[in-house]
């Protein structure tokens, strides 16, 4: 049975950064992922990463923008840490080899981004996430001696001992189908968000909420799950992302009447208001009949000089050409708001600790919370790296002061029996793929930009029915080698657990804040709702609790852009 000081689940930016930090702190480390690390969804973060690194900029300004962007639901102690540590993190990455683009003088260059009061987004063309991910993987290869890479291993459960400590995981080697117990003194969950519970979504097929559900199932509370970000610029047909970098470089939004409608909603920041504001503006235009016939808005990038587009927005030139048949250097591209990010997640403190001893979380899977009700563009990469590193460092420290956990192999045979039972289900019920499609459509209809009681109740009913149907849903693949079908069935369970908590929390928050807009409660209500909603599993049902928002120096104000 493999044993490590620190075991990390998920190998995107948060996971890889945690692995490097823990290894450099002297721990024996394993990093496990259901896909090869460079396939992780961090790739898709195109635009850049925020840091107040310029002498004229300040971390306080970055923090205030983030607090305001969060609609005052972000915890200000965590936001302060993130913004203070951002400059050093950028420099560390630069020293590791990230090919950040430079300005004329050869120093790190920046671009503008939404909700920010200064141009503080550092970038590599429009492949920033990809460049970061591949450079961190270079660093993992460099640390081959201290970091075991478990590529294409699928985690099925987190383990807890009788004292309540998290002691490791059970995982399946996708290539052989073999199930194994991995023991560790500390486990860091860093396996990303749950965009696949929505259809369409900008998220990759692998974003199925595995870590959120696994932690929830062993008793870790989830926080702010109602806060789901809709990105303002996604392709109508398939949900693909057009980076906010486009607007950062100067692109404008127009409705079908040719009106630059952001003037009405955010007269000073215009297209670069917070994402929730821009998405709501677009959705309002569409619903009031000023969108294009296919329910879209026009994003006009032709304003940006062609040389600049080719140098720094090349990926969306490709996406426009390959997936929308549009040459964005010559004509506007049609977009609409699409599901993009979950601000909520596994509740952690600023060290990445969950309330369960030995269990950490970092990245989109976690909720520290630095994003509160709405995440600013280019703050997600920063979140993964700063809190990935902190979780790695702290887990290493925890491991050095802890003995190896006891464990029993008994769980392994139960887990094997459960997986075998999925494979051998008869075809009486529905297909797993059908349930997944129904879930995504329902969530996108009822738990989207605008929400109200009736729709949310309908969504809850659908999710609970799907949970039941999921118990008998069947698959085709009977094999063990690369049985992706059975993994899909397990992922459906993860998504349904996450979806249930999203809907329950959305029903609970009877106000409008950040990305959560209730048409039946259209105002923000600080008196009653300036607090986090925590959801813990009690038996099979979600139990609601509350925790206070940490406010250090910025009192809630009205939010205008």
């Amino acid at each position, binding site marked *: 049975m493999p044993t490590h000081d620190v075991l990390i689940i998920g190998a995107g930016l948060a996971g890889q950064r945690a692995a490097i930090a823990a290894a450099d702190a002297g721990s024996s480390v394993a990093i496990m992922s259901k*896909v*090869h690390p*460079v*396939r992780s*969804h961090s*790739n*898709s973060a195109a635009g850049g990463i925020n840091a107040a690194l310029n002498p004229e900029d300040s971390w306080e300004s970055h923090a205030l923008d983030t607090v305001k962007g969060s609609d005052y639901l972000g915890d200000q102690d965590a936001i302060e840490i993130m913004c203070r540590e951002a400059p050093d993190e950028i*420099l560390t990455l630069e*020293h590791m*080899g990230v*090919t*950040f*683009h*430079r*300005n*004329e*003088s*050869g*120093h*790190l*260059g920046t671009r503008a981004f939404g909700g920010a009061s200064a141009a503080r987004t550092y970038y*590599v*063309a429009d*492949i920033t996430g*990809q460049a970061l991910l*591949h*450079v961190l993987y*270079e*660093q993992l*290869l*460099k640390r081959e001696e201290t970091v075991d890479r478990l590529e294409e291993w699928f985690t099925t459960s987190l383990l807890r001992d009788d004292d309540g400590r998290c002691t490791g995981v059970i995982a399946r080697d996708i290539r052989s189908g073999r199930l194994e117990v991995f023991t560790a003194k500390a486990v860091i969950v860093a396996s990303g968000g749950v965009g696949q519970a929505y259809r369409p979504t900008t998220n*990759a*097929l*692998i974003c199925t909420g595995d870590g959120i559900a696994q932690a929830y199932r062993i008793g870790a509370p989830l926080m702010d799950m109602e806060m789901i970000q809709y990105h303002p610029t996604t392709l109508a047909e*398939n949900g*693909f992302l057009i980076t906010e970098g486009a607007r950062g470089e100067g692109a404008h939004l127009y409705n079908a009447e040719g009106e630059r409608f952001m003037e009405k909603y955010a007269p000073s920041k215009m297209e670069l208001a917070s994402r929730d504001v821009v998405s709501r503006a677009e959705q309002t235009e569409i619903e009031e009949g000023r969108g294009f016939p296919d329910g879209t808005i026009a994003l006009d990038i032709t304003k940006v000089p*062609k040389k600049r587009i*080719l*140098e720094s927005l*090349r*990926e969306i030139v490709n*996406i426009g050409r*390959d*997936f929308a*048949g549009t040459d964005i250097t010559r004509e506007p591209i049609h977009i609409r708001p699409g599901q993009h990010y979950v601000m909520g997640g596994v509740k952690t403190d600023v060290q990445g600790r969950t309330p369960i001893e030995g269990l950490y979380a970092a990245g989109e899977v976690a909720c520290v919370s630095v994003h509160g009700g709405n995440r600013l563009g280019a703050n997600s990469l920063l979140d993964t790296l700063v809190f990935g590193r902190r979780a790695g460092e702290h887990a290493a420290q925890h491991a050095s002061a802890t003995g190896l956990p006891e464990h029993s192999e008994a769980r392994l045979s139960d887990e094997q029996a459960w997986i075998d039972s999925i494979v051998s289900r008869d075809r009486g019920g529905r*297909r*797993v*793929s*059908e349930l997944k*499609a129904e879930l995504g459509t329902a969530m996108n209809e009822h738990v989207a930009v605008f929400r109200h009681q009736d729709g949310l109740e309908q969504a809850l009913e659908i999710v609970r029915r799907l949970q039941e149907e999921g118990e008998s849903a069947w698959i*085709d*693949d*009977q*094999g*063990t*080698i*690369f*049985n992706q*079908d059975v993994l*899909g069935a397990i992922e459906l369970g993860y998504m349904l657990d996450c979806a249930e908590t999203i809907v329950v929390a959305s029903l609970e928050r009877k106000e409008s804040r950040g990305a959560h807009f209730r048409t039946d409660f259209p105002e923000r209500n600080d008196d009653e709702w300036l607090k986090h909603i925590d959801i813990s599993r009690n038996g099979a049902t979600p139990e609601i609790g509350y925790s206070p928002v940490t406010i250090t120096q910025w009192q809630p104000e009205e939010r205008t852009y």
Partner: protein
Amino acid sequence: MPEFTLKIRRFLPETGDAPYWEDFTVDLEGHRSVLEGILQVRDVQDGSVGIRCSCRAAICGSCGVRINGRATLACKTHLNDALEDSQEDGAIVIEPMGNMPVIKDLIVDMDAVHWTKIRRVTPWLLPDGPPPEREYVVPHEAMVDVTQSMACIQCGACVSDCLSMEVDADFVGPAALAKAYRFVGDPRDAQHEERLRDLAEDPHGIHDCTHCFACIDACPKGVAPMDQIMRLRRMAGSDYEIDDRNNGHRHESAFTEIIRKKGILDEAKLLPDSYGGKLHPRVVPELVDSLPVIVTALTRGKITPKAALMPHRLPRDSQEAVKRIFETIDERDERYELNLYITGFEDEEVEKAAAEEERGPHE
């Protein structure tokens, strides 16, 4: 909606059966991707069809496959384009990538080949001494320049279709060499010469590439691995004057010099010139070594004694035209390197855009 037939190469290792073809019909608009077609097959017909996939938008590099015999990303290929390219009657042919062992259906063992080669090129930055207090100050152009190789998503399409790797499995290969350029072109790396010497001296290194362009065709991200290999060669030979034991640099110089003088390749001259000229002591053993090849070529009529003694000649004006190309290139102060992120689109589109600019702004 239109129907498309996907002819998928199946291989289910646990059955003990040999690989076989299976046809599936899907209903999708023609501008949707081949991957979406395969996902529809999985969702409603047969969930056991194996393919790695994740982002659906050509960023994660998971879904490298061969479509109609050529490696590409399934998510980036439109169904109607694939059908148009098909040589089979009305079916889009989908197979696993080449040069790598197949694990199941369309899933190949990337680790055994692709990643092993990536690890071969010391794929991490090797700077000199401790880092500066702030960032390394480097030219903007240098960072834009290496972006082309940073744009590689490690999908393996170039490795799949590399012809050199087909005959020499040990060839470091297009993806790993493009990765090497990412460090050799990065001014922060302090081991440029060591890296270049290593890859030039390796018999399976930069001089093992036969310049066939297959990797450039296959690459879905415009990385143009062969261009990066050629840049490594130029840097090794011209900038660091690495006289490699594979004779790669001398061979390339001899080739260019013959073209410069004659405008056309004189094959009989190429071998001796590559080893320092007819009278050079290095030539004799090399000629002796090459005798079997020469004999085979003679017996098959590939070369004749007459052709060797009296090579083809270009007409004088064509020779002059070739000379002018060399002169134009020699006049440049800096070596002209093609780079997607700097020069923009593929050639055809650059020309189109340039023509448009000449015509003045439209509307």
